[in-house]
């Protein structure tokens, strides 16, 4: 349903997206997981014909995004990262406007609006102006709007950003439901690893404009071993070296003042690790152990946390730009 080949976007000197290859099957929920400024929104913008690729090709629903824009646009729905509803109009009117713009007939619109508002549970609120909606309600309405014209592909750019955990779970539920009901292919970008894990059939981890891992969430995690141990020790670098020599762990990585270890048999290993540290004169302040998450996958691949940078995506892009210029 979506196939890209060496898809690249440059803004001046900055390469925001670097030669990305994606092959997304019909009906799949596919996730692009990465920190802010990794190139997720740029990728989605190219696939939804808002930005023209610098080089490479992308075929969405059978049409080239650079040369057959209008054909692509008919078959896609987009939920943007930033709000894009008309606050003065009611929920019903927002969907009505969308349906008209996409050339749907009156009966078609009427039926579809009711169907979608029921799906996202906003039917009671249909005649209230959108400015009186809560953040979660607006998001649900935007998802309904993205589906209004029965697209074959739905793009969701950070669908739950800024929402509270409970609302986030609701949104996930709606996305799963509509994916099942409508058989629509979904491409979702996120920097929440729980979201990618729960929602997606397949995940591509993206960093600095490149895909650094691509697989089913379960398989990405199982490559990490059975458990992940995080230790707060006095000299993390030194401890990392010691651990590497011991051959107990699959992978190790220092992030800040913590050591992240991927291991097979965590419970038995913890005492050994403590003894090892003490023998070498290091203080162990705390130890935690958990099953691997996509966050751990990201840490092992990049040595950074997903949500390390609290800055906005433009700030992150700027940082990368400055860093490139530096060398």
């Amino acid at each position, binding site marked *: 349903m979506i196939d890209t080949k060496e898809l690249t976007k440059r803004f001046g000197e900055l390469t925001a997206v670097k030669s990305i290859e994606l092959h997304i099957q019909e009906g799949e929920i596919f996730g692009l997981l990465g920190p802010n400024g990794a190139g997720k929104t740029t990728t989605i913008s190219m696939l939804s014909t808002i930005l023209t690729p610098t080089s490479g090709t992308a075929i969405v629903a059978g049409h080239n995004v650079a040369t057959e824009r209008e054909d692509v646009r008919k078959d896609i729905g987009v939920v943007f990262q930033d709000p894009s509803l008309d606050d003065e109009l009611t929920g019903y009117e927002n969907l009505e*406007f969308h349906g008209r713009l996409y050339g749907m007939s009156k009966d078609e619109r009427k039926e579809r609006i009711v169907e979608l508002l029921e799906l996202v549970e906003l039917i009671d609120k249909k005649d209230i102006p959108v400015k009186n909606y809560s953040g979660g309600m607006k998001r649900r309405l935007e998802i309904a709007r993205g589906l209004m014209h029965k697209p074959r592909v739905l793009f969701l750019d950070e669908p739950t950003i800024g929402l509270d955990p409970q609302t986030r779970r609701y949104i996930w539920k709606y996305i799963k439901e509509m994916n099942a009901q409508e058989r629509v292919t979904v491409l979702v970008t996120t920097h929440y690893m729980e979201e990618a894990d729960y929602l997606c059939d397949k995940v591509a981890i993206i960093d600095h404009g490149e895909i650094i891992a691509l697989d089913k969430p379960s398989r990405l995690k199982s490559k990490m071993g059975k458990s992940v141990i995080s230790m707060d020790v006095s000299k993390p670098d030194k401890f990392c070296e010691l651990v590497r020599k011991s051959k107990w762990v699959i992978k190790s990585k220092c992030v800040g003042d913590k050591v992240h270890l991927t291991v097979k048999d965590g419970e038995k290993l913890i005492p050994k690790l403590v003894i090892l540290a003490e023998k070498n004169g290091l203080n162990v302040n705390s130890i935690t152990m958990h099953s691997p998450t996509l966050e751990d996958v990201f840490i092992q691949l990049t040595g950074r946390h997903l949500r390390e940078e609290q800055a906005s995506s433009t700030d992150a892009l700027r940082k990368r730009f400055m860093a490139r210029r530096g060398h």
Partner: protein
Amino acid sequence: MAIYTIWLREMLHFIRDKSRIIGSMGMPLFFLLFIGTGLNSAFSVPGGVGYMEFMAPGIVGMILLFGSIFSGLNVVADKQFGFMKEMLVAPVPRSSLVLGKTLGGASTALLQALLLLSLVFLLGAVKFSLIALLLVIPIMFFISASFVNIGIIFATRISDPHGFQVIMNFFIMPLFFLSGALFPVDNLPGWLKILVLANPLTYGIDGLRGILIGHPTFPLWIDFTILVVFSAITVLIGAYAFEKMQ
């Protein structure tokens, strides 16, 4: 269909914003009542009409100018609140979006002008026939269509509503004062006359005045031709500016 959709949205916004409708009447009415009454006794204008009657078509031009240019503010707001993206990603050519915005902005300005005209009529400032009222509608439409697009052209370049208002005020006042809305064009000194004749709004107001109270400076067909040509040019530039946006 897409053009109608965009137009419909502009109308819905207009109808819901009662304060904007009432507010837009304020300035033209103040001009007519205070300046018009004040100068009525001091001034005589050609054709033997009173100054207030002379000025009435001028303030109709004023409300058309203000209403039209500020409908560009809707474009700035659409950009700011993200709704522009919803329109840009739809399978609709951008020229349709511009035409929809133009018709929407022109219709709302036209409705404001008609409301003002009826108020002016009821106040007794000017008398005109129903036929004259029907005849001024096309003139008013082309005045609005032109200035809506001038608003759109600026709106595509400006993303801050306050910046838009400041820049537009800078343009609107000279356009209004140099349009023959407040004084007759015939006997002006050379430099001023050149500026007034270069202003498309001059012909719009002259056309309105010719139909409503008689005594136009230029033949009606010249007024009308200049307005149609000018609005065609602004629509084309507006569509181009929209195409190049972002």
